[in-house]
């Protein structure tokens, strides 16, 4: 194999693929990136057996061939090469080495045979649709924070994507929950998505997809099979296994009868929550909301360090109510909302609360109260 490539495009491509490589893998080949020179250019591929990312870049191929080299090492080398440099890669048959040259630098890397590199055989994809990067980004961003890390309920370790009829239109919906909070976002279903199977995309794939959509670009193609998802961004293709499990019936826990409406100035409210929670550095400390006519009194009590209260003016006309929430969760949710105001729909201090931008907004959040 012999190929010459621009440093900038190689760095960008390695940047995409090397992230899926686990720093400490017990299987040596998984630490490597597959480098394949062929007529279309230079192909790169990395996997952790759950996710696979491939990218093909323009390159000057003198002699086709393929090998694998340590992913983080080659990434670091290319990162440190000077801007505008040309990089040549040359693997010489049996020797088990690849030589990387650029300007006056020369690196010799140990290789492992290409034939050992695992293939995350994607197989037949039954569903295929295109979506704008900005739309997919919104779905992911608004729900990602609620993904659970709890291992026993593995089916919560991802975002649940599915299509559903909602107010006369078919929507593509993303839902994540860790049991304490639930996030739901949706967009009109793209053509071809209707009737897709409900899939749970694991947390790591979600994070990679988010990084790739943040780069913008043209339409993204999403393909699904019962066990895998493939997302194609221009020249980058990410394939991931799906979580094999049943997502809980989330619709039942979205409260529909909460009749006490509280409207807050989103930013002012978030800042006040952030301020009063300073008194307790401990995660999971409750902030108490004493809600009465036109006013919420936020308070945090920490027996070790003191207490804090702050009053916020709000719109509220129902009977007074005291309710507690995890301050962190409250901030997570208010930072995901878009509007100037946020609408809380409450029932009682023991029941889940619904939080939205406004009545009927596509994104909604459900938060379990804490005892205070």
């Amino acid at each position, binding site marked *: 194999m012999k190929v010459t490539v621009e440093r900038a495009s190689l760095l960008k491509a390695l940047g995409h693929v090397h992230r899926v490589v686990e720093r400490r893998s017990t299987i040596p080949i998984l630490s490597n990136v597959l480098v394949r020179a062929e007529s279309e250019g230079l192909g790169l591929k990395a996997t952790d057996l759950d996710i696979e990312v491939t990218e093909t870049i323009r390159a000057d191929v003198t002699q086709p061939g393929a090998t694998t080299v340590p992913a983080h090492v080659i990434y670091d080398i290319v990162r440190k090469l000077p801007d505008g440099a040309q990089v040549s890669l040359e693997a010489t048959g049996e020797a088990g080495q690849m030589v990387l040259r650029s300007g006056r630098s020369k690196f010799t890397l140990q290789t492992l045979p290409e034939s050992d590199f695992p293939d995350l055989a994607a197989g037949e994809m039954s569903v295929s649709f295109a979506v704008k990067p900005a739309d997919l980004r919104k779905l992911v961003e608004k729900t990602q924070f609620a993904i*659970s890390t709890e*291992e*026993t309920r593995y089916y919560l370790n991802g975002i649940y994507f599915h299509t559903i009829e909602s107010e006369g239109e078919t929507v593509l919906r993303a839902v994540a929950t*860790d*049991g*304490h909070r639930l996030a739901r976002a949706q967009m009109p279903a793209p053509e071809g998505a209707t009737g897709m199977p409900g899939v749970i995309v694991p947390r790591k794939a979600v994070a990679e997809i988010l990084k790739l959509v943040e780069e913008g670009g043209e339409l993204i193609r999403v393909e699904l099979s019962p066990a895998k998802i493939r997302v194609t961004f221009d020249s980058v293709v990410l394939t991931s296994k799906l979580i094999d499990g049943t997502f*809980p019936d989330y619709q039942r*826990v979205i409260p529909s009868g909460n009749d006490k409406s509280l409207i807050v100035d989103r930013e002012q409210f978030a800042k006040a929550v952030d301020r009063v929670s300073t008194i307790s550095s401990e995660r999971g400390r409750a902030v108490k909301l004493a809600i009465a006519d036109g006013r919420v009194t936020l308070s945090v009590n920490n027996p070790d360090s003191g207490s804090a209260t702050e009053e916020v003016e709000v719109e509220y006309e129902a009977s007074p109510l005291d309710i507690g929430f995890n301050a962190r969760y409250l901030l997570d949710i208010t930072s995901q909302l878009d509007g100037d105001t946020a609408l809380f729909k409450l029932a009682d201090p023991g029941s*889940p609360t619904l939080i939205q931008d406004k009545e009927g907004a596509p994104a909604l959040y*459900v938060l379990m109260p804490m005892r205070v």
Partner: protein
Amino acid sequence: MPAAAALCRDCLHLAPAAPGARPRCRACGSPRLVAHPELTALAIAHVDCDAFFATIEKRDDPSLADKPVIVGGGRRGVVSTCCYVARTYGVRSAMPMFKALDACPDAVVIRPDIARYAAVGRQVRAMMRDLTPLVEPLSIDEAFLDLSGTERLHGAPPAVTLARFAARVERELGITVSVGLAPNKFLAKIASDLDKPRGFAVIGAAEAAAFLDGKPVGILPGIGAVAQRRLAQAGFATVGRIARADPARLVAVAGRDGLRLKALAEGRDARRVEPERETKSVSAETTFQRDIAVRGELEPILWRLCEKVAARMAADGHATRSVVLKLKTADFKLRTRTVSGLPPTQLATRLYEAGRRLLAEECDGTAFRLIGIGAGDLCDPALADRGDLADPDAPREKSRADAIAALRKRYGQGVVQRGIVLREGK
């Protein structure tokens, strides 16, 4: 050396020990004397009922008196207890039943009636509590007792109190016990085994080291076959070797455990007799009539065990965060699989869900002879089954379980059953 005291276990006469090879009680002439220099000073005892289950069976059916009796689970399963007649044939507890019957084909095999034995066990324990509040039960039929400071109360040293207790158990319950008296739990436990059945043995602090010297290290608590082999390879085959070893070297071989082993080997044991031992887990298991490899047949059995464990957790006020599945293969290999970090639960359905998932991974055609399910990492039931956004059914499941429990309490166990039990025996 102080003059040894001799206690007659029949008439409780306590006198300075008389010289002679076979002394008898000077008051009643009985040969059942215990003599020891530290006899009146020692206060920690281990009391163990002799062949407990078998003895009860013999007591309740005198025709069995001189027959070899084995209590255990049918042709399959293992010997849980065998009487001393059966032991002369080489039968031992924990021996697979088929082997026991090979050794002693004429044995009378009796299925254990644990409820009946437990009732007798409670009677024995009540009598122990008459002696001291410091009773630490180890199982249904054995316990540690700390009789320190009871001399005034009972008007006699602990040795006499214990002999009186042993006589009372025999007289009132018709079973026999063996007593080990020593300065600590470790030695007391060894002592109770020395003179079985109907025994009374004493190991004093002064002779402990000499007594332990040539014993295999397996005698030390916590040293099983594997550890014993490892220690032997390092040159520690006997307790005496450990007692004389350099502590640093012991720590190198046995790790943190090394220093504990050294203390025990020297006859020192600082563990106190703890009257209430905290429950760490709740479990149930069963051995099958015949080996089972099919998941569909194992599941109903697992379900019944889950119900049992859940009922016991509810009765004792526990909930759990981890489930342990235990399987024994047809060739006696033990497999345990654990799932931890579960949301706290007290429900049979939740135990079953977790157990069933673990079971699914083990059902690869292997035939099993035993299945068990355990609940570990116990916690406050107030935290259990509260449900959350990802688990909205938990509170309903809990009230359903409560309703079923109430029905069963009123109308009997069989009044409500899950459909899965109908699969049993198919």
